[in-house]
């Protein structure tokens, strides 16, 4: 897994609530047996219109948002199916961070296991961030994982807006993200305890 410490980049707004994993990657693209190529089909049915052409009204297709590494979504992101393909698709497209006011449990775990940082902010901050990006698509956003702070560049924002927000992250997951480890490494280091447990307590 890639290490994550600090990132400054632009963002794409996708202010839709309840974006489920079927929307992120439709089931018909789940036939692959490796993790590659899912990025091409992220939000497939929103990105392409019925004739198979890119839909120019969809933010990911708009010139001003190309190259952005942060996705700013609506509330309750990643609900539905547990398919990790959703996280692979978002990472495959080039995103490193997703911001929402709420994440579904399984998606959040899947994201963290793939070096994608899910940041939960207040609904107020989310709408300020969304508005900020919509007004200034070039607005740089900084994500500082060490200090657990997200910040919009001040130059572009109105004085009434708060530019900074702190976010929570499980301390264990934070260490994993910063060092690029994953849970398998950790669990294997605990093999002895697991085997003892099996011997002493396993009922089934």
């Amino acid at each position, binding site marked *: 897994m890639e290490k994550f410490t600090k990132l400054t980049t632009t963002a794409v707004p996708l202010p*839709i*609530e*309840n974006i*489920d994993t*079927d*929307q992120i990657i*439709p*089931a*018909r693209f*789940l*036939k*692959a*047996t*490796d*993790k590659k190529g899912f990025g091409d089909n992220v939000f497939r*049915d929103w990105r392409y219109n019925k004739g198979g052409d890119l839909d120019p009204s969809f933010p990911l297709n708009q010139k001003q948002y190309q190259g952005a590494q942060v996705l700013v979504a*609506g509330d*309750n992101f990643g*609900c*539905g*199916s*547990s*398919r*990790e*393909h959703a*996280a692979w698709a978002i990472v495959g497209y080039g995103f490193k961070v997703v911001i929402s006011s*709420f994440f*579904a*449990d*399984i998606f959040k*775990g*899947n994201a963290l*296991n*793939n070096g994608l940082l899910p940041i939960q902010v207040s609904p107020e901050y989310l709408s300020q961030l969304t508005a900020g990006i919509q007004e200034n698509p070039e607005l740089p956003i900084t994500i500082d994982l060490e200090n657990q702070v997200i910040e919009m560049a001040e130059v572009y924002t109105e004085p009434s807006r708060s530019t900074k927000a702190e976010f929570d992250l*499980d*301390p*264990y997951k934070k260490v994993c993200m910063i060092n690029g480890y*994953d*849970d*398998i490494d*950790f*669990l*294997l280091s*605990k*093999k002895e*305890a*697991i085997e003892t*447990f*099996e011997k002493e*307590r*396993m*009922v*089934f």
Partner: protein
Amino acid sequence: MAGKTLFDKVWDAHVVDTIENGPQILYIDKHLIHEVTSPQAFNELEQREIPVARPDQVVATADHNTPTQNQHLPIKDAMSRNQLEQLTKNCDKHGITLYGLGHKYNGIVHVMAPELGITQPGMTMVCGDSHTSTHGAFGTIAFGIGTSQVGQVFASQSLLLNKPKSLRVNVKGKLAPNVLPKDVILYIISKLGTNAGTGYFCEYAGNVFEEMSMEGRMTVCNMSIEMGARGGMIAPDQTTFDYVEGRKFAPKDDAFAKAVSYWKTLPTDDDAVFDKEYHLNAEDIGPMLTYGTNPGMGIKINEHIPEKGDMTFEKALEYMNFKEGAQLLDTPINYVFIGSCTNSRIEDFRIAANYVKGKQKAPNVNAWLVPGSQQVAKQLEDEGLKEVFEAAGFVLRQPGCSACLAMNDDKIPAGEYCVSTSNRNFEGRQGQGARTILASPLVAAATAIEGKIVDITKEVLI
């Protein structure tokens, strides 16, 4: 000290270790796998040269991406064929039992495991599929995991998890006629919303669940994820023990008696406290339908779509081509799907067959019946239900997930409505542009006969 909940008891019995300021290591008793979410986990293991820790605790099936017709023939779609071949190869290589396509125990993972007695009270179970919550009907901690976690369980038979909070949903009273377990859970989600359960594990309690069959309890727990909960549970009782007894992998004789005495200690203590609790009246529940694009957008069959006017709501109604304030009654329906791990057990088909018997399906309707497993398919034949359905013009397919997620050829055409017994009505879930209306097997059967949505509250049908 306050008492423990059912969830606490099972969870605490499986904690291997607790990391300071971090998650716990939870031991997993059973790991179910299928073709779609396992290949990348096997690849990962291979790349890192890690063996599968406990292959005897893993059971595999092929269900998500399998055809429901001509299963004896080679699969036409090359990618689907490859995915199934990979599963077979991986299971062979690592010594994992596979009930592959055509095997007499093959079926949807959440139908076949309980049926074989693999699912037992007090266990921890996982699968790379969110509806693993189904198994909670037995008083099991069962939940869906992502592919990275599938790899973790392969490697260590354990997972790193933070203990979820506890939630209890009580439903007490007498259900009206024609109200099935599916209606109970659709009603709960419509009242509590699609993220009421996020961060929680849910216990269902009250006489309504106590009086339900195991099939009904599975239908309820299955959709726990649709209100955001990681899983749902129902306390094991005599109904549970009777269901498990005698099944292929259930403990036998003395071992069974010993197991039962342990299972009897699992129900929530009277003085246990939940982080959140809801109370609902059974009398308020009617046969349900969904009108929108998430499972929380549900109403009773003869109710009106609410008038809300927010963006998400309008977008959903536009997709479904319904109007605020309208009723769904009399909407012509061309597709009916009875299947999926929510409602493809024998009891579901018995209810549908009982209604359908002696009637004819409406000419406009394509009615697909997809049993949840080979064993259910066999029961349909043995009990003569297959004949009942075929005489009424329904098409009986072979087992699998089918139109629940439309990965195979069983897709609903764009713009068409499908009254479906599955669990998700997301945009495009049953095919690009398909419009899904979730309902019970009884509502689905009535829709197939009438060719439109009809009010089934007028007479007692079951």
